[in-house]
């Protein structure tokens, strides 16, 4: 299948079409809205199912196989926030807070992009073509990127305040910030983290036998999960569509960043995945994870710690640029990269 044919097949999937439909609804100013409680319920279901199925598979995996991919994932979690911050701050001339706020989103991961990438690989290489421990890597990538970017932002702001105070000779009183402990607590108890880790732990305990009783409801391959994901993507389309007007405030650099950063991070993810010994399907998913930008865990953490960062920038970049880019173009691209680097039959 050529890359173009792959894009074509991807665009015609129910999930992508539902996302596009959501954007169209906003463009024609339809009053359609998914109730907030349904959105929350769908995200709880998807994240818990993802963790649960991952845990079940993990209970039958060799822990040694996980070591190198885990190191590669943590490496990605350390590199992507720094590369994002540096390009936004020094090439894009964003303020310290804005650059760090956006970097926190790009350092973390979008679980829905992860699921979409997995579905894409399954559609092209068949079920089971992605390593069972990938949800574990998803949880590993969730936090370090946010913490590193927030640390860069907080330290950078403190430094620039010191320079300002020294120049003026007046020490301005600083507004209180949440403690490091409070930020860690916020991240570790965030909905996505708790559901993934909780689901995975339960999955590990119950194994295949225990999972059989709830399989029709939670199995990723089943109609229920796919249906919920399609509805969730309709909501994502509505949210992305409502942020399209903010693109003009985002500026050309942020739009370019929202497309080039995922390509660069995706390529790095695929490459590190291949070095860690992952197969082509798993490399694709790792690439998509590295390329994605968080919009569940990162926004509240950034808002709490770096309120100086403009939410229009980080939410528009993550939701209206990078998410649709990955869904439409990125995932097939990382798949081709993975096939080129690893090949289909390689371990």
């Amino acid at each position, binding site marked *: 299948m050529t890359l173009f044919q792959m894009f074509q097949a991807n665009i015609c999937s129910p999930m992508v079409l539902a996302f596009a439909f959501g954007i169209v609804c906003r463009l024609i100013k339809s009053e359609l809205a998914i109730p907030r409680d349904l959105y929350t319920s769908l995200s709880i279901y998807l994240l818990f199912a993802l963790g649960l199925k991952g845990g079940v598979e993990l209970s039958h995996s060799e822990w040694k196989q996980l070591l190198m991919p885990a190191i590669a994932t943590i490496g990605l979690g350390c590199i992507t926030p720094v590369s994002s911050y540096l390009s936004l701050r020094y090439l894009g001339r964003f303020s310290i807070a804005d650059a760090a706020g956006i970097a926190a989103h790009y350092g973390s991961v979008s679980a829905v992009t992860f699921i979409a990438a997995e579905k894409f690989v399954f559609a092209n290489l068949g079920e089971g073509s992605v390593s069972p421990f990938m949800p574990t890597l998803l949880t590993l990538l969730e936090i370090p990127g946010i913490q590193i970017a927030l640390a860069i932002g907080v330290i950078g702001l403190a430094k620039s305040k010191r320079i300002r105070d020294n120049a003026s000779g007046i020490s301005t009183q600083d*507004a*209180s910030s*949440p403690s490091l402990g*409070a930020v860690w607590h916020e991240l570790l108890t965030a909905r996505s983290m708790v559901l993934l880790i909780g689901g995975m732990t339960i999955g590990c305990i119950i194994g295949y036998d225990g999972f059989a009783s709830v399989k029709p409801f939670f199995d990723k391959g089943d109609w229920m999960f796919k249906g919920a994901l399609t509805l969730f993507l309709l909501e994502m389309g509505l949210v992305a569509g409502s942020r399209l007007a903010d693109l003009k405030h985002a500026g050309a650099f942020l739009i370019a960043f929202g497309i080039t950063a995922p390509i660069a991070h995706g390529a790095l993810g695929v490459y590190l995945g291949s070095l860690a010994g992952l197969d082509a399907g798993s490399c694709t998913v790792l690439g998509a994870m590295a390329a994605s930008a968080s919009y569940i865990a990162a*926004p509240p953490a950034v*808002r709490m710690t770096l*309120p100086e960062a403009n939410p229009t920038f980080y939410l528009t970049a993550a939701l209206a640029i990078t998410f649709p880019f990955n869904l439409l173009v990125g995932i097939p691209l990382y798949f081709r990269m993975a096939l080129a680097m690893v090949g289909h039959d390689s371990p």
Partner: protein
Amino acid sequence: MNTITLTLLTIIAEALLKDRLLHEVRRAGAKGFTVTDVSGEGSRQRRVSEILGDNIKIEIIAKRETADNILVVLQKDYFPRYAVVAFMSEVQVVREDKYV
């Protein structure tokens, strides 16, 4: 009926500040509060973000001194950085001991 005048302090803020604000309210000595989910727009005609959740309204009935102490904290730590508004009014209550 014998009523007494106390101060009703109303705070409207981003929902993610809920725990921190309630901590400040308790620290200032308020005996109780009511929290409601609300929505609306401020002077800039836009919400911080629908992704970050709706707004909350915290209502506290307390002595004027307690309300002033909470306002001082809001003025110093929250107004410059977050989407928060607060206002006070006088209210007539019975059972003063429930509030102070």
